[in-house]
């Protein structure tokens, strides 16, 4: 992969190697601290990937432990229905998170961009950021006090209107909606800041020109603001596509308490691995599945990156 990356963008004129190094050296120097961090904390530890194919023991260490081949993957892929369901749930939830999250974040940013009251913007933007800080455990506790069958606020409200109480925690599909809503609630404010910041960097001259041409407010939003956000939307989508198979265990644990009745839709890969391998103390199994998640995500990104390249060369990740 890196070879290909190396060869692709050659400047037109062939300079001597020395000369080009001279021109590039400030850039190499600028990248150096980052490269060091990457090497120390990401690439050197990657040697641990071989552990996935080994039976780790203390005396052997990382390199001396006996080989296990693909044994560590067996527990996952030998029960195909669980593996497929976990993969499906993960992809489904991630796609929903990505779509809903992007729509909400972009909408908030675009709308904020239209508002003129400085203090209103300041206050609402700060407030929308709060949920980001509240841990899933606390969110789970608050949700529980809303949704509990006997004492939950919602069922008590239903009661006062003479409606039958609903057993929220036994409806797996209802929980997809709840999880998506919780995710929007927790991260939309964070995402909106990213887009809002992009809009703040935009030259106001664009708007002036369009306004003189008699464009309406809605037209300004859809014809100027939105298109300007597209590179950022593409970038953030590309970045999250790589994590398409990775799920947030703490979220599911916090919000559903790993309720068995909800597992048909909430049993994402990370939850399944937790319920099986980690609870059995087989950590080698767990890291094997992490590799599966990475490889799958990587393939998706390669495709998505290609597609993004057709749209605009500058939108590519690498």
């Amino acid at each position, binding site marked *: *992969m890196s070879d290909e990356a190396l060869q692709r*963008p050659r400047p037109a004129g062939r300079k001597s190697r020395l000369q080009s190094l001279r021109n*590039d050296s*400030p*850039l190499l120097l*600028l*990248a150096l*601290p*980052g*490269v060091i*961090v*990457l090497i120390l904390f*990401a690439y050197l*530890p*990657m040697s*641990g990937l071989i*552990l996935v194919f080994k039976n780790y023991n203390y005396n052997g260490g990382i390199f001396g432990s006996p080989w296990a081949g693909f044994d560590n993957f067996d527990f996952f892929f030998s029960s195909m229905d669980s593996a497929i369901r976990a993969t499906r749930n993960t992809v489904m939830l991630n796609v929903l998170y990505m779509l809903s999250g992007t729509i909400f974040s972009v909408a908030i940013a675009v*709308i904020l961009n*239209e508002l003129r009251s400085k203090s209103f913007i*300041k206050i*609402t*933007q700060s407030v*929308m*950021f*709060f*949920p*980001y*800080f*509240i*841990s899933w*455990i*606390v*969110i789970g*506790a*608050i949700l529980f*006090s809303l949704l509990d069958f006997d004492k939950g*606020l919602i069922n008590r409200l239903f009661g006062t209107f003479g409606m039958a109480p609903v057993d929220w925690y036994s409806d797996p599909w209802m929980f997809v909606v709840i999880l998506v809503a919780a995710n929007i*609630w927790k991260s939309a*404010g964070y995402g909106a*800041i990213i887009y809002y*910041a*992009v809009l*703040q*960097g935009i030259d*106001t001259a664009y708007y002036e020109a369009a306004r003189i041409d008699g464009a*309406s407010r809605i037209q300004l939003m859809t014809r100027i603001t939105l298109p300007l956000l597209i*590179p*950022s939307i593409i*970038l953030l989508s590309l*970045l999250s596509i*790589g*994590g398409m198979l990775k799920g947030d265990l703490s979220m599911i644990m916090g919000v559903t308490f*790993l309720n068995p009745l909800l597992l048909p839709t909430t049993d994402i890969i990370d939850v399944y691995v937790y319920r099986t391998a980690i*609870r059995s103390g087989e950590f080698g199994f767990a*890291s094997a599945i*992490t*590799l599966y998640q*990475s490889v799958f995500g*990587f393939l998706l990104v390669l495709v998505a990156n290609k597609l993004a390249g057709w749209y605009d060369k*500058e939108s590519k990740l690498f």
Partner: protein
Amino acid sequence: MATNQENRTLIVTFYFCIGLFALVCLAPFVLAVSGSLSTEARLAAEGYSFLPRGFSLDTYKFMFDSKADQIFQAYLTSVVVTMLGTACAVLVTTAYAYVITVKGFRYRNFFAFLAYFTMLFSGGTLPWYILSTKYYHLDDTLAGLFVPYLLNVFLMYLQANYFKSIPHEIIESAQIDGAGHFRIFFRIMLPLGQVGLVTISLFYALQFWNDFYLSLMLISDEKLYTIQYMMYFMMANIQYLASGNSAQIGGAVIAPPLETAKMAMTCLTVLPIAVLYPFLQRYFVRGIIVGSVKG
């Protein structure tokens, strides 16, 4: 005339939507504040409400009485780590982001890929832990609390995205004037990418402020505990109870923390950022680019 009317309805709708969403976001936080000011008995009996149930400062008093020094120390560590970490990380990140946005740089894609690959693949905790403790000796050091996180690839791409929105002509004209990469980076890109810079600074600050993992892995000296790690200690009890593993230790009586304490800790960790954020917002100023091109 009609469009004006239309505009007004639109604006009112906008205000309403944003206001509503903000309220929904605020509500649980109000619940948390009110919960932390309630008495444990009434909170347990009656559940959460927007007004404290039986107003009392006991929870905070209790927390500060027994652990005042430690909480203060942890706050201090968190603040130092956040400031130091953010400053270093922003420098490392923006420099790297600049490199992968330079048009015509032959290794541009190589560096972009080098960073992106680490977002997907990791070797797991074990080798990371061995290297960090045995070889880099980051255990029980202040550096251990931020050095491993100096390059967040997601934020690096974000910053690159902001750099890309800077009109290319500005860079070209600087190059024609004979400016080198260092000069362009520090004198043009950083000031012009200020909005991006503020954004990623904010996100970095959050990352360092919210992190408990580095403390958990590398710190055993309680002088270096961060406030989030202290919070995690408490939350870990709940998580452990929820996992059902506790049944294996027959004798252990692990009491889940009091609801009020849980809420108080949430407030304690959120507040500083809630105060800091509006302050940062004044850097989100429109029209920076126009101004600087003229000047």
